[in-house]
């Protein structure tokens, strides 16, 4: 293991640490590497990751000199590149490149799932030249309009008529590239609105065998904003609902060809049954791995690396102390103004809290997941679910937004 290397493709989390903890050496590929990060890794390489040809050539060159055993990233935008490098280097355990594309591109995933007859969802693909009248002939409003391959709920619109769809398309085509400079798919998706509560399914697939680790309930503000307000783990579902969701996810991952990956699959429970919103070949964001670890003892991020070595849950050091439930709540600004809150508020229930803003700072109204004020995490016990404690804790922080016009 002393001289075995792992290629890290533009990590966005604690990938470097996870790999080093397992005793492997690190090769970091990133467009720009900070001075500190240069010293954190063994082989730092600055390169344009959007130039795939150059990246692949460099990785082949590295593989001729070093013993590379894995390619790893939890960066949503770089997962297909990591898969492509793994295939090029003929690594034994890898997420197939085709599957990585299904997990990045909602259009491709929807097409594949519908073809297989799994949780069928009506959709159309349009571009600026499309005749909307014809496209919308046999599909009912309301409809969701979204880019095929962006992320973070960016540019997702709920539309009630053709005019709104037209406006949404105009907004979407204004962004030609995503935040890492990759071109956005020219096809824009118009999809039936999946009405119902939302869940995410945290799972791991090794050797084609999927294990559902748990189901998280996702709390989202109503459209048009659709901001994630919190998550509860585990979701309190009826046995038959849970069974349906588990089956849908297992079948979907199999059809998409997902393997050697930790996945975070978003599902809506509609009156027609559960439907896939999207499949992500990485652990969920928004501190969901923290909630999962608190309840199950399973560290999804460590697991995400271990699966690239062909290992599963049994290779993890599970946390010995677990709790029955855990919840996270995000604090939002209901209007623009100066924010005040009781930063020092103490409660035995709070396990972690983080503020993205300072007391007294001017904030804008929260309109997306990117301008929330902060969060706190609470654990439940045998008597009380974590979700039953969050309201009293939230009140304790006493978040107030003072509008500049208020006296």
């Amino acid at each position, binding site marked *: 293991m002393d001289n075995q290397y792992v290629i890290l493709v533009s990590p966005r989390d604690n990938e470097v640490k996870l790999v080093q903890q397992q005793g492997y050496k690190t090769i970091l590929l990133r467009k720009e590497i900070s001075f500190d990060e240069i*010293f954190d*890794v063994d082989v730092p390489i600055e390169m344009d990751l959007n130039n795939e040809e150059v990246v692949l050539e460099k990785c082949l060159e590295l593989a001729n000199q070093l013993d590379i055993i894995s390619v790893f990233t939890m960066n949503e935008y770089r997962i297909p590149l990591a898969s492509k490098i793994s295939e090029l280097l003929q690594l034994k355990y890898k997420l197939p490149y085709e599957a990585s594309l299904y997990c990045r591109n909602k259009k491709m995933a929807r097409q594949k799932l519908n073809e297989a007859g799994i949780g069928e969802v009506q959709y159309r693909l349009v571009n600026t030249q499309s005749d909307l009248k014809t496209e919308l002939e046999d599909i009912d409003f309301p409809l969701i309009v979204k880019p095929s391959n962006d992320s973070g709920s960016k540019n997702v619109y709920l539309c009630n008529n053709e005019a709104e769809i037209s406006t949404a398309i105009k907004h979407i085509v204004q962004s030609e590239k995503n935040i890492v400079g990759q071109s956005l798919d020219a096809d824009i998706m118009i999809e039936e609105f999946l009405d119902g509560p939302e869940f995410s399914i945290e799972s791991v697939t090794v050797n084609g065998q999927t294990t559902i680790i748990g189901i998280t309930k996702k709390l989202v503000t109503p459209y048009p904003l659709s901001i994630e307000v919190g998550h509860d783990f585990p979701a309190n579902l009826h046995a038959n609902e849970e069974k349906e969701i588990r089956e849908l996810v297992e079948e979907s991952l199999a059809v998409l060809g997902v393997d050697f990956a930790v996945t975070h699959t978003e599902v809506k429970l509609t009156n027609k049954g559960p439907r896939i919103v999207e499949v992500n070949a990485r652990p969920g964001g928004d501190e969901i791995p923290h909630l999962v670890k608190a309840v199950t003892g399973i560290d999804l991020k460590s697991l995400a690396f271990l699966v690239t070595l062909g290992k599963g849950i049994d290779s993890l050091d599970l946390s010995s102390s677990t709790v029955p439930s855990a919840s996270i709540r995000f604090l939002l600004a209901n209007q623009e103004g100066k924010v005040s809150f009781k930063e020092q508020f103490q409660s035995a229930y709070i396990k972690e809290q983080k503020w993205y803003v300072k007391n007294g700072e001017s904030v804008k109204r929260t309109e997306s997941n990117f301008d929330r004020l902060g969060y706190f995490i609470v654990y439940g016990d045998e008597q009380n679910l974590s979700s039953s404690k969050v309201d009293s804790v939230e009140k304790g922080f006493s978040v107030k937004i003072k509008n500049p016009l208020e006296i």
Partner: protein
Amino acid sequence: MLALNQKLNSYFDTFFTEAVEGGTLPEREKVVAILTSATLLNDQATLKNAVLTAKQLGFTKEEIGQITAIAIAVNAQKIKDQVEVKVESKPSSTCCQ
């Protein structure tokens, strides 16, 4: 400004490329020279690139640290010499003076 004179600029580019990328020194020794000069010139951009190259060539943190230490030491020696005060040794006894 050198770019204003295309001919001289071109000579410089050739000289630079030959000095830094060509020549007889092995890559490891060239990077030591670049690290040393970038440290002395406090040229952060060149220093970062040199450290990146040094790491890719397998230099350890300690080795990079020592190269920097040598540059700092030589520079400090020069400052030390510039501000040196001449101290004359006094005889321990003045009884015969």
